[in-house]
């Protein structure tokens, strides 16, 4: 971390880091502190009546079956989103890596959804999967006789937001997997083929294990994405419904805090999320430390 040849100056380094610190403290630490305080208070929506209640908000939160359900939904949603986008991304990346020609074109054709806002992705998929006029749902209903109705049925709604969220992440994962695969030394693959491994076995026994650091990173990023950035998707598509089936944690923070105006509970939920994210970050760093080495 420390460069050997540093500069010495009494004030300059402080001046240089100052803007960063200022912004961070103002818009990060102070709000986070406030959030923490708020999470231990009962307040009216207007912040005019505040009662300090210690951990009551947290206690009632974890006693609330709906919050627990929301945790479950979030986990399921994230896992599914990650699983769909990772497996699809991995699959396409594998194919692209096999393709000898046109890698650049393929990448161009696959990369752009990354740039689409989650909210817009939600709109697109809503349009595709809407029960009464979405082309995909019509296709599903007509072809497979499925009774597809995300407006009514929680599972269908969940599938819809998973699709909309995963779609966008596919390109992100694709980029990483392709890069990961390309950084696996060719000689390893060649050694495996000398050892008599078929393409499929090479993929299974060499590529996948060697991709595990990338896989881990991508998983973490996907989880963070589906925990937070999918807010736009949920907000535009289901608003947490039907019957709370798509009410993921971050949406619940918004719904309870901004729509329901229950600030204490909402803040407590934010704090829970913060702790969660910090844990993930720490894990991520720990893992990165002992990353598998490619060469050697």
């Amino acid at each position, binding site marked *: 971390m420390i460069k050997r040849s540093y500069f010495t100056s009494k004030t300059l380094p402080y001046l240089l880091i100052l803007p960063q610190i200022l*912004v961070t403290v103002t818009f990060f630490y102070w709000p986070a502190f406030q*959030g923490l305080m708020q999470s231990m208070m009962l307040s009216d929506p207007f912040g005019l009546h505040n009662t300090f209640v210690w951990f009551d908000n947290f206690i009632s939160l974890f006693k609330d079956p709906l919050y627990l359900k929301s945790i479950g939904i979030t986990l399921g949603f994230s896992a599914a989103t990650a699983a769909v986008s990772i497996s699809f991304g991995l699959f396409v990346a594998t194919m692209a890596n096999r393709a000898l020609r046109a890698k650049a074109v393929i990448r161009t054709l696959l990369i752009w959804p990354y*740039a689409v806002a989650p909210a817009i992705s939600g709109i697109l998929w809503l349009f*595709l999967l809407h029960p009464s006029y979405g082309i995909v749902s019509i296709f599903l209903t007509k072809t497979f006789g499925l009774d597809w109705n995300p407006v009514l049925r929680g599972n269908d709604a969940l599938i819809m937001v998973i699709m909309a969220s995963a779609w966008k992440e596919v390109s992100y994962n694709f980029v*990483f997997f392709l890069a990961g695969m390309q950084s696996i030394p060719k000689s390893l693959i060649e050694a495996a083929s000398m050892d008599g491994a078929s393409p499929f076995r090479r993929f299974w026994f060499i590529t996948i294990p060697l991709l595990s650091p990338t896989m881990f990173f991508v998983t973490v990023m996907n989880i963070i994405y589906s925990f937070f950035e999918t807010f736009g998707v949920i907000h*535009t598509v289901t608003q947490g419904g039907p019957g709370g089936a798509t009410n993921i944690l971050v949406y619940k923070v918004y719904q309870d805090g901004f729509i329901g105006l229950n600030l204490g509970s909402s803040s407590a939920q934010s704090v829970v999320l913060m702790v969660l994210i910090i844990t993930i970050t720490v894990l991520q760093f720990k893992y990165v430390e002992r990353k598998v080495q490619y060469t050697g």
Partner: protein
Amino acid sequence: MVEKTPILDALTYIFLMLGILIVGFPIIYALIAATLPIEEVSRVPMPMIPGDQFMVNIQAAWEKGNLGTQLVNSFIMASGITIGKICVSMLGAFSIVYFDYRLRTVAFVTVFCTLMLPVEVRILPTYEMAANLFGPLNLMWEKLGLGAVAGWIAGHDVEINLDFSLLDSYTGLILPLVASATCTFLFRQFFLTVPEELCEAAKMDGASAMTFFRKILFPLSKTNIAALVVIEFVYGWNQYLWPLLITTDPDMMTAVIGLQNLIPQADDLPYWNVAMAGSLLVMLPPILVVLFMQRWFVKGLVEREK
């Protein structure tokens, strides 16, 4: 590889095409929808042959959604976040990597604790912060009884109410999102890979810290900057919850938020054609940025991993 696997090769390309098609389908469908008149688009199922109403719909979206102003806002917000983040984080990383000072570790930890925490989890207090930047000062004034002290000194009641709001301002859209360590982290990683000898050579050549930064480090960071420009521009452009909360003036709204006005709500006619036209318009700029700057973008993304 060397195996003769024509079937596998063919499958590879078939699957690739399929993959690209699946990934591309929503946009193709949106494109078609955007060319149709309202009657066609609300037909079930929607015809898959493009119509001729594209420009009409685009225009409708443009006007109805106030997209002209909002695209400009989005652009300002995205660029502001991009430039702000890059400036702040580059200087910060420079300080952390190239200087040795007492509080360096403190600064490092302070900054990097924020690495992965998205705005969403601290949204409410951040909002209040943005609403009045001097809130904490006022609070301290009250809580610490400074007012009373000042009053005692001045001999009369002193009321201080500093008031500086970032709501409905570009600063408000931008600044709170600049507070993240991802870029700083990336620059730090990059600076650590810059050979130490380069810095030493510059020192032997008589360069001061800032000269080294301007003349050597900055030019060397060009590709990293380019990568970050793409990533942060897309990030800024696609922000949702924050601008949703902080802007109330329609002339300050960003395009992604404004787009919600185009989506047929319970109380509108299903103008999906216009909604799709609007969506296309709003998603176009970041897509173009990503496509045109693909090379750097990929590099930047992948380097984040490290």
